[in-house]
């Protein structure tokens, strides 16, 4: 009985998607949802909600699920339907699957994401894969759990555009199938909170932690290359990666859940002016909706965690993203400003970007070219085996891009020959 359960979830889902497909020109760059569903099927085959994912500490897994949203087949099926339903957007073209596309590593592979009316936001779409294990959601951590995260894009004017949750519920509440599914899942009429819960339940199925690196840890010495093995040593040593991206059995996804200013924002904006402006508008109206708009829709998005906590120490700070499957989820950083993992390594190697709020733990690393290559090779071994093809393609593509240009590379800074923050004597020209 148990074994057939997962497949029946898929069957339910596949049937009910039919009449909600946007026209091809309205897909905002995503794959058609039918194609996405076909891709999804083999990826999540065999997942049993009662047991949870393999390779995750069961105590940690249990702790990551809220008490009022234990996963059941009905909840997962409802969430799945909602995830692929563009009726949850104001103009009926954008679903979760638009920016978290199953054929594009559950993200959209764009620097920043596109929503209704072709509006482009300011933040890079994180992947839904393994998001269930993150300590908070969004780059600035303004949602605690998946349940909270799922509700916010729906009411964001740039993303899915409904003015409030009630409008979103009204868009689907007339659907008899939904009424029946909500009843089966939560024993309630369709409501906004349960929309969030259901989507979260579905997203908890999307655990992809079976990478060649895991096989290597389990004892298969041939699972990863010698380069990658050296990279693993560097990851825990000279590269200092493990301090913010720890990889251990209790935390297999590689994020410490904390907020660090690594200097990415500093490349674009003047923090002091931005922070003042943000304080002005937040003082007038400190609601979630305002916060959400600011986070996605304006320059102040670069202030990161500061918008949520309003603490000076959080200016320009963003939550460490998970590092699993990073090979296939380019581009990188909160603004998608880095195309390749070589760019990421160059950024950290040079000590980030100097700004008054730079996390002092980001120091120049003096990594050699070979060491960078080793770290990149290692990071690519963190991609789940089910995406091996996409991973190989991505690696080749990034390697070629990196050969052509390395915009963030600065050997003088990396090798500590030149100091950041260095100023000129007062009155002289810089």
């Amino acid at each position, binding site marked *: 009985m148990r074994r057939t359960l997962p497949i029946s979830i898929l069957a339910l889902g596949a049937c009910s998607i039919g009449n909600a497909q946007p026209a091809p020109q309205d897909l905002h760059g995503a794959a058609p949802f039918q194609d996405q569903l076909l891709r999804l099927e083999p990826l999540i085959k065999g997942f049993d909600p009662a047991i949870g994912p393999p390779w995750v500490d069961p105590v940690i897994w249990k702790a990551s699920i809220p008490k009022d949203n234990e996963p059941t087949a009905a909840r997962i099926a409802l969430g799945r339907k909602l995830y692929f339903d563009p009726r949850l957007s104001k103009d009926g073209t954008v679903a979760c699957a638009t920016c978290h596309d199953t054929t594009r590593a559950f993200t959209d592979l764009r620097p920043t994401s596109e929503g209704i009316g072709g509006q482009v936001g300011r933040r890079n779409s994180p992947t839904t894969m393994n998001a269930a294990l993150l300590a908070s959601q969004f780059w600035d951590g303004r949602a605690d759990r998946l349940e909270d995260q799922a509700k916010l894009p729906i009411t964001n004017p740039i993303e899915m555009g409904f003015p409030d949750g009630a409008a979103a519920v009204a868009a689907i509440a007339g659907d008899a199938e939904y009424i029946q599914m909500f009843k089966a899942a939560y024993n309630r009429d369709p409501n906004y909170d349960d929309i969030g819960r259901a989507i979260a339940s579905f997203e908890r199925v999307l655990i992809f932690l079976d990478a060649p690196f895991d096989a290597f840890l389990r004892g298969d010495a041939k699972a990863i290359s010698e380069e990658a093995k050296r990279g693993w040593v560097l990851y*825990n*040593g*000279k590269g*200092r990666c*493990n*301090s913010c*991206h*720890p*990889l*251990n059995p209790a*935390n297999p996804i590689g994020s*410490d859940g904390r907020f660090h200013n690594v200097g990415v924002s500093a490349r674009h904006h003047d923090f002091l002016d931005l922070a003042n402006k943000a304080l002005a508008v937040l003082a007038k109206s400190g609601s979630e909706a305002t916060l959400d708009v600011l986070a996605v829709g304006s320059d102040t998005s670069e202030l990161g965690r500061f918008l949520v906590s309003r603490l000076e120490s959080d200016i320009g700070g963003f939550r460490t993203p998970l590092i699993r499957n990073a090979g296939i989820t380019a581009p990188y950083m909160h603004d998608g400003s880095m195309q390749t993992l070589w760019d990421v390594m160059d950024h950290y190697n040079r000590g980030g970007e100097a700004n008054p709020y730079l996390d002092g733990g980001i120091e120049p690393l003096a990594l050699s070219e070979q060491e960078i290559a080793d770290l990149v090779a290692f990071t690519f071994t963190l991609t789940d085996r089910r995406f091996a093809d996409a991973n190989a393609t991505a690696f080749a593509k990034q390697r070629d891009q990196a050969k052509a240009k390395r915009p963030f590379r600065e050997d003088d800074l990396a090798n500590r020959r030149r100091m950041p923050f260095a100023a000129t004597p007062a009155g002289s020209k810089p």
Partner: protein
Amino acid sequence: MRTRLLFACVCAMTFACNQKERAEKREPAPGSAPAAGGATEVKLCDNHTTVALTELPKDRGGGQAVADQLMAQWRQQHPDQEWETAVRRSWTIKPPADNASVIAGGQREGQTYGRYTQLDVTTWARESERAAMEGARVFHDGDELGSTIAVSCDMCHPDAANTHPETYPKFQVQMGRVALLRDMINWCLEHPVRAKPMAADDPRMRAMEAYILAQRAGTALAYGKH
């Protein structure tokens, strides 16, 4: 080490005394040779440290002065030999546990097992303390640690403060995994100190562990404490 110093002292003093006697007998003395310009070379018993005298001492005081001169020269060329004094002068090491209680007891003299003497207890204390002292020496010396930026442990941990070795093994946040004391020492070596990490059985690592643990004598174990 102490014994050796004494020997050299006695040696030098004896030489000086003999020198005086032989001078009076006007015979060339063993261990001295006429040098260029008529100066006499006096060697320490290490057969290396040398002092050249133009005038031989005439009394005990003079002889002692020559001996002192030789010793001072030897100390200057071997600054590490009196390292224990130097360590004690600079840093306080907590004493090891007092084992006087094992000496008491009704075991009979002459038995091999179940019997310890004052000499045993003193030896244990000396050796334990010396291990901690060696650790203090390494702990406070950036060059000894191999730091490439002239940083030593005491810059953040004076008197090994804030090292809390009683909390290991624990999840070390900076390493993203569970660590033992020596793992954290190595992490600190690699990052704040910017030196090469040491092998677990490196004498310097063992010494530092000894010192750090010694400084926390009396603290209850509390593994996993952050």
